[in-house]
């Protein structure tokens, strides 16, 4: 995927601290990853894991009053985190486009689809209104909306959820960004529409070589689209690697718990009964009160090491380090799990 070419985005030791009434909340704690051209990186985690905040921080979308962001995030050679606001505004369109979760609220209800698209196109390019409108119609056709010309004059409420999400993708793509960030972009949609949107993003990505960050809690979606997976828990990356490594041979007890907790359509029934789901007891930690050692230890069924409680495990390579994308996990509990054949709590 990233054969020699420089990555589109390089994130290094990203940290986000938010000021809250309950004291400082460490929402993202040292996140590092790269996104290559044409590559899809899936960021997976449950609510409160810091996955959304981590990308909002990249694009400078967190209010400076409450958020302290440190680290480096180099997009096409420029650090987003030290950029001046004016420059950042220029970069957001052609550099990085974003698709948010809720297609019902991320469009302005009182403006036509055309105006919202033209606004984005003209903000980043010296084009006249008529040309921008033509471009807008092309974009709508590209994302597969029927009657693109007519759609330009319609209002968001006249479109279905799937159509709106296509419009939002068209807006995000209007300046041919090098990076597309999709934050739970298909979560609010039905599975059949979700399949359409995923196909669309994959097609556009293949045509343009866009790097994609796909944030989701749905491991099924991840299996279908991602090249690389990053599992977040308590603001940290607890496991990452290729999609096959992470989903087929998960190592971190949290990843394994997450996969075990997923009802699986492909799982055969035993004597007509599908076995109970494995559960992860308890709830994720509050970012204002993270555990001292491994972030997962209070809920961990393994706790195989005395250091779990006291010392933070580093993100260490598992297996071979001589591959383009090494499989890494942050846990003290590697011994006894990695070599033990098929781990229970993992896949089947």
């Amino acid at each position, binding site marked *: 995927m990233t054969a020699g070419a420089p990555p589109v985005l390089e994130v290094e030791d990203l940290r986000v601290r938010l000021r809250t009434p309950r004291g400082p909340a460490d929402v993202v704690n040292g996140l590092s990853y790269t996104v290559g051209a044409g590559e899809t990186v899936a960021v997976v985690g449950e609510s409160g894991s810091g996955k959304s905040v981590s990308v909002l921080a990249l694009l400078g979308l967190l209010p400076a009053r409450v958020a302290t962001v440190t680290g480096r995030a180099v997009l096409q050679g420029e650090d987003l985190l030290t950029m001046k606001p004016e420059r950042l505004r220029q970069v957001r369109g052609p550099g990085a486009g974003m698709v948010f979760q809720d297609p019902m609220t991320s469009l302005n209800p009182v403006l036509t689809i055309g105006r919202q698209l033209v606004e984005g196109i003209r903000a980043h390019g010296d084009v006249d209104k008529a040309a921008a409108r033509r471009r807008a119609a092309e974009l709508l056709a590209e994302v597969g909306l029927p009657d693109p010309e007519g759609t330009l004059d319609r209002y968001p409420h006249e479109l279905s959820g799937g159509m709106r999400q296509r419009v939002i993708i068209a807006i995000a793509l209007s300046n041919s960004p090098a990076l597309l960030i999709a934050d739970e972009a298909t979560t609010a949609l039905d599975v059949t529409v979700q399949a359409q949107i995923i196909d669309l993003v994959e097609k556009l990505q293949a045509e343009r070589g866009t790097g994609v960050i796909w944030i989701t809690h749905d491991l099924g979606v991840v299996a279908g689209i991602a090249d690389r997976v990053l599992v977040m828990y308590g603001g940290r990356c607890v496991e990452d690697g290729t999609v096959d490594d992470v989903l087929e041979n998960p190592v971190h007890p949290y990843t394994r718990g997450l996969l075990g907790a997923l*009802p699986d359509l492909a799982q055969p029934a035993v004597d007509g009964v599908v076995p109970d789901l494995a559960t*992860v007891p308890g709830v994720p930690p509050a970012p204002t009160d993270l555990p001292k050692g491994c972030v997962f230890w209070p809920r961990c069924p393994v706790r195989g090491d005395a250091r779990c409680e006291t010392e933070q495990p580093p993100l260490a390579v598992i297996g071979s380090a001589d591959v383009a994308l090494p499989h890494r996990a942050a846990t003290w509990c590697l011994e006894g799990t990695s070599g033990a054949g098929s781990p229970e709590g993992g896949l089947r």
Partner: protein
Amino acid sequence: MSGDVLVSARGLEVHFPIGGRGLRGKPAGVLRAVDGVDLDIVRGETLGLVGESGCGKSTLGNALLRLVPTTGGSIMYDGTDITSLDRRGLKEMRRRAGMVFQDPFASLDPRRTVAQTVSEPLEVHGLRKGRDKAARVAELLELVGLDAGVAGRYPHEFSGGQRQRVGIARALAGEPDFLVCDEAIASLDVSVQAQVLNLLRRLQRQLGLTLLFISHDLSAVRHISDRIAVMYLGRVVEIGPAEAVGTDPQMPYTQALLSAVPLPHPKLERERKRIVLTGDVPSPAAVPSGCRFRTRCPYVFEPCDDVDPALQPVGAPGQQAACHLHGVVGTPVSTTPDGVTTTP
């Protein structure tokens, strides 16, 4: 199907008038949320009801508890037609049938303690009083896996999963034999979803409940259900044992729906053929004539236009699908000029 039927709907219709001019104006159209549903729910089973948003699955669930007025057909609940019940009869019926709602943040009163919420059905139905009541609340909380000590707490002190447990405890308070769970796990995180799914399964077995599990999540439905019913545009288009519907669906819509469910297995996902449906679900205010799936069906052929398909036995024992591919069975339709059908 075996065993006796607890809930039985025949030709059930829930139509809403839409677009009238002014308060007294005649409605401009009819929204057919539930449009001729025949459904039997067997005592002690878990029936999963799936479909895309707008297919009428929630309205059907509400109609079975008479939470929305029906406009046609009948609902037999344990031998009584509940569409014609008076207030007293309805009250007793609602003690015997509970509901768990989708949003655990909206379905609990923020100003009432857990004990007040859970004991309300006990008061309404005059089931327990005084110390008995408190004991019953504690019993219910323990049943759903909460500590009895939380009875004095308020909803904001709980996580989503815990709130959903409170909602389940409330639904169980009247000792119902039928429970409707409408998207009961949709707003929960994966690990918490698993906890609630396991809880529902345990309760169903332990209390011998009959469960209608409404969800858009096919994996979850397949996991928890004995049988699955698939809805499209107000109609049940396929029904059968969970295993059969989940692995060998007979109706093209079910096939497309299942193929669109992403599986958490990268290798399987790469090999899998996905049936991508074009377009959106038609509006339930303008249901296509004949087979209602024909506008999106990849196999559409002649009879689909003018014969409204009925459910017919196909595939595994107990499996039924409404599709002409298995033989043209159904009601010929007379089409009005605007393409909207009226079923005779």
